[in-house]
């Protein structure tokens, strides 16, 4: 007789704190992935909406960037609230990726060697759902690139801390960079399309009555984020956003950390 391969995990001798104990389970990993996904999704939506200030001119968006550092007003020291949000986001990102990585490894192992001769006929899975791992990796690489480009200013001598408007223009005015932004945001939208549908299922807050609405919700949110985010490189390339009348350093805000 055969023996069915049971995963004999090395259970730790001592009981782990409950949250780590829970994280050992795939279902809970997926749940944590969904929670971190919602946090990231909230951030992406806010980020996109905030960037819309680009269309109100340099004054507006540079001021917006400055206000982020002043979050909390006089209640907290300058930039502290921003740093708390940054750390929270990074943590959510890290957990999301760790769970994705370890579940992916497990799934490949559970699948085993592909033996089917006839290619699998997909009936429900779509391109977005089957490429979550790839769209996710593209998003990760893009986030690093995007920080280096606009937050740290590694790629341009013209980069000035605080002059958000000119920095965006100088970056996306080069078509290869605009292309990177466009491609990465298509991947992000696909990731969000499946993720926004999937998270209800994973969190167990779906409701048979609203299941059809969930697909439309996913379409809507992925579509809005796609349109919003693609508009920036397209507007710069199309000449809608330009540097006419803009002098670097003209916005003498308290630029700084």
């Amino acid at each position, binding site marked *: 007789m055969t023996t069915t391969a049971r995963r004999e995990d090395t259970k730790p001798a001592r009981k782990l704190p409950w949250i780590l104990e829970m994280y050992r389970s795939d279902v809970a990993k997926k*749940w944590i992935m969904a929670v971190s996904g919602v946090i990231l999704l909230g951030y992406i939506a806010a980020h996109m909406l905030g960037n819309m200030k680009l269309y109100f001119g340099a004054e507006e968006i540079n001021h917006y960037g400055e206000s982020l550092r002043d979050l909390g007003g006089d209640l907290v020291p300058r930039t502290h609230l921003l740093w708390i949000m940054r750390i929270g986001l990074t943590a959510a990102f890290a957990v999301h990726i760790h769970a994705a990585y370890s579940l992916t490894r497990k799934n490949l192992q559970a699948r085993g060697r592909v033996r089917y001769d006839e290619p699998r006929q997909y009936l429900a899975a779509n391109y977005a759902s089957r490429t979550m791992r790839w769209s996710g990796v593209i998003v990760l690489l893009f986030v690093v690139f995007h920080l280096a480009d606009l937050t740290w200013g590694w790629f341009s001598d013209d980069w000035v801390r605080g002059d958000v408007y000119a920095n965006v223009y100088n970056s996306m005015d080069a078509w290869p960079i605009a292309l990177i932004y466009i491609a990465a945001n298509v991947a992000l939208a696909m990731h969000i399309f499946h993720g926004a549908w999937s998270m209800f299922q994973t969190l167990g807050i779906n409701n048979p009555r609203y299941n059809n609405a969930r697909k439309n919700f996913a379409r809507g949110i992925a579509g809005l984020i796609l349109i919003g985010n693609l508009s920036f490189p397209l507007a710069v390339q199309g000449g809608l956003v330009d540097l006419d009348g803009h002098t670097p350093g003209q916005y003498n805000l308290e630029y700084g950390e």
Partner: protein
Amino acid sequence: MSKMLNLKLKIWRQNGPHAQGSFLEVDAHDIPEDASFLEMLDVVNERLIADDVEPVTFGHDCREGICGTCGVMINGQAHGPEKGTATCQLHMRKFNDGDEIVIEPWQATSFPILKDLMVDRRAFDRIVEAGGYISAPTGTAPDANEIPIPKEVADTSMDAAACIGCGACVAACPNSAAQLFTSAKLHHLNTLPQGQPERWKRTEAMVETMEDFFGSCTNHGECHEACPKEISLDFIAFMNKDYVKSKIKNRSLASKR
């Protein structure tokens, strides 16, 4: 006389779990279109026996779609092209004269091949053993209908109980996850009053046993498409919710602190 079909079959043959497998190509001529898929295999086997070739091993029992013993991949689809239909209930009239049909066993690391098209599904038994029961007091049989159960609850429990445990969900899943099976078994008992005493223990035990053998759900929905009983994806969401709730709440600790 019913119409006759001439088919080209490619059937997976493998002597045991570790043996090297290969396809047997058969010209199956004069197959009555009223035959079920398994009857077609019977005809082929009779002819193989007449030619002194060992017949193809495949699982079957009730042949009326209720036992869950049958099940093969037919042209890359678990249980073949007809929705909500087990292999034994699939009829040859769904195919056309001259079709090539590729017939393969379920594939998953935890479903090793016993022989040809038959796989070992004892991993499912382990999951059911872990919690698929209720405790009932012995003694006089209670009166019928003594426990009131709302009609909707009885219905949804029955819908879950329709799962025949054939394993098509695992075979259809790109991750070889057994979420649809496990959630159906859980929902069956977890919704009924009789299932409440062990509800949280059952959920944790069955989910964790499932995770010892199978991959993790990525919400493609392929399992539901393949399921001969059209078990709902909602049960998976309910399972996720119960599992995480059980892990987080830990009500049973309340008296011990």
